[in-house]
């Protein structure tokens, strides 16, 4: 083991860990007597600095790797693989974590301020490790790091019954899903006798691995990862977790952990789906999960009055859309999955953050009715929220439209030689389009309350902090920018995947 090399490879993570311990240390000693809000601001500032330094480390690594210098050629048997693509996504995770910290600092659930930010930072590190992991051991360990931090964060409001209940539900179901995942991984190892993705792919393509073992392993992996991305029928934890946990945490579960999980799905299943002899069985399974997610997610969202729960069901539906790109089982599919994961996360983070701001000022969970006439008092916030929701609904020219477009085109284009509409994935795309139309109903219902309703506004004029305002604005700009100019990111992903 080359320890100096390992030090440089994990430098961003080490900086963030150091920052976390500094924040914990200051919070336990020097800030002990201060009131929670001041402490929260100070700890958030420390966390922000740590994340920014970490991000600088990632950018430095990115520049080194794109320069073609051999600084990070050692991947430690696939445990930490630094390529332009993994580093870009790790950087994105760090940026999203920066947003989450800004949104979290105004409304810390209780007096455990530094623990709150510490767990957010630890889950960020887990997501970063998961993205760079191409080794089964590292994969499982980083998934557990993400999950454990998020369980803790969901149950953070220990004085609120529903938060604890959501945390326990998430914990129990997440534990079962981890067991499925580990079982699948152990079969994958048993079949291929390899731990690194590279070796596994080679063993599967060369036919050395027994096919039935690979199929069983993949089935268990679909179940285990299906829980993590909240795809139906493994979605039961999602509505409660999103509704009852602290709102920034819900935003983080819906954005950061989704990106990391989909990145893993592409890395793990991309090669298996392109080559394996059992491809058709596996694709049939994923299609089933995808259709169920789209139907259950969108139908479930129709009857929700709590906005957070509505967004939870919509996230289940979005997991279904993204799986369509995986079904395509080619490079276009992988590109579209990664692209959609990015833009979905940006939009959902923005939407949750807006709801979080409104919730904290309202002092309770916001129902759709509470938004009536918000535009009169808070025009800026309403317009930003409209951008996020319309992007989720997939309205052009926002990025959600192009994301869905790429997903559907990848699925249709994967079988160019089919003769009639009943073959291939035309029917799947048709279901997805139909369900997108259904989803418009509930998205527009929320927007109607925000923008059109003539009722007198229930919400007073909301003062948002500079950090929150800047975060929301930046997210909205990114959502619009990636809609107007999606080719830059798509071409980057395509070039780095190839």
């Amino acid at each position, binding site marked *: 083991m080359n320890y100096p090399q390992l030090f440089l490879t994990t430098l961003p993570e080490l900086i963030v860990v150091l920052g976390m311990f500094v924040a914990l240390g200051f919070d336990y000693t020097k800030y002990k007597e201060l009131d929670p809000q001041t402490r929260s601001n100070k700890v958030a500032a420390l966390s922000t600095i740590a994340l920014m330094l970490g991000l600088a480390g990632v950018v430095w690594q990115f520049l080194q790797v794109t320069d073609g210098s051999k600084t990070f050629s050692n991947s430690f048997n696939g445990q930490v693989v630094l390529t332009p693509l993994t580093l870009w996504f790790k950087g994105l995770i760090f940026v999203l974590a920066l947003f989450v910290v800004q949104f979290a600092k105004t409304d810390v659930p209780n007096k455990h301020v530094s623990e709150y930010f510490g767990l957010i930072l630890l889950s960020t590190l887990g997501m970063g490790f998961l993205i760079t992991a191409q080794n089964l051991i*590292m994969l499982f360990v*980083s998934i557990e790091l993400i999950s454990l931090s998020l369980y803790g964060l969901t149950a953070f409001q*220990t004085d609120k019954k529903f938060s604890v209940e959501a945390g326990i539900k998430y914990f129990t179901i997440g534990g079962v899903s981890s067991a499925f995942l580990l079982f699948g991984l152990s079969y994958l190892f048993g079949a291929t006798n390899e731990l690194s993705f590279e070796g596994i792919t080679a063993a599967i393509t060369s036919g050395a691995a027994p096919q039935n073992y690979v199929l069983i392993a993949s089935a268990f992996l679909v179940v285990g990862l299906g829980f993590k991305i909240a795809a139906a029928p493994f979605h039961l934890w999602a509505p409660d977790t999103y509704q009852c946990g602290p709102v920034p945490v819900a935003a983080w579960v819906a954005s950061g952990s989704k990106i990391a999980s989909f990145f893993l799905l592409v890395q793990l299943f991309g090669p298996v789906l392109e080559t394996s002899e059992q491809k058709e069985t596996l694709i049939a399974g994923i299609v089933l999960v995808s259709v169920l997610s789209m139907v259950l997610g969108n139908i479930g969202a129709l009857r929700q009055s709590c906005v957070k729960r509505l967004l939870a069901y919509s996230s289940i539906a979005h997991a279904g859309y993204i799986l369509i790109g995986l079904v395509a089982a080619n490079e276009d599919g992988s590109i579209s999955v990664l692209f959609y994961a990015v833009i979905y996360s940006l939009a959902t983070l923005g939407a949750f953050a807006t709801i979080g701001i409104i919730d904290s000022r309202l002092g309770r969970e916001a129902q759709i009715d509470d938004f009536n006439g918000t535009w009169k008092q808070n025009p800026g916030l309403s317009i930003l929220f409209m951008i996020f929701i319309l992007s989720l609904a997939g309205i052009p020219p926002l990025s959600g439209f192009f994301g869905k477009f790429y997903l559907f085109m990848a699925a249709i284009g994967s079988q160019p030689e089919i003769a009639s509409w009943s073959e291939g994935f035309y029917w799947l795309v048709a279901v997805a389009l139909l369900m997108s139309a259904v989803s418009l109903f509930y998205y527009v219902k929320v927007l109607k309350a925000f923008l059109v309703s003539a009722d007198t506004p229930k919400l007073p004029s909301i003062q948002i902090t500079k950090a929150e305002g800047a975060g929301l604005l930046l997210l909205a700009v990114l959502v619009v920018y990636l809609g107007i100019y999606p080719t830059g990111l798509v071409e980057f992903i395509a070039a780095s995947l190839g």
Partner: protein
Amino acid sequence: MTVAFYIMAAIAVLGAVMAIALRNVVHAVFSVLLFFSALAGLFILLLAEFIAVVQVLVYIGSVGILMLFAIMLTTKVTGDPTRKLLSRGWAWGGLVSGALLLAFLVPLITQSKSESNSQLSNFNPSVKDLGLTLMDPYFASVGVIALLLTAGLIAAVVAASSASGE
């Protein structure tokens, strides 16, 4: 070997079922310990002596004793006899799991007998090798496990200190 495996597996399943089904918490803990010991036996059958020793030391030794201590400090040992232990729809759950087991695992087990196991030939389960493997090629993963334990610790601190009402 095979007979020993089935005996151990049967004891493990029995212990696990009893841990859920018994109403007296002390009895349940002892059933869990029975399950742990059977598991240690299974690890020995798999030639994983180190994991078997860890199983005995950590789970039977510390975790079991810890649970007994925790029970000692509580007043109520027997659960509410009026409440049903089985939830609604347990039969469906059992049916589905049984069907999955039959559909997935049984064909696999029957098919796998002929395949030679290449791993067993170069399998050298010494504690020294295990330590070297963990600390040398897999050092990065062990580092992430350290973070994982930190996260667990922080979450436990939050959960425990608020529950005490302080």
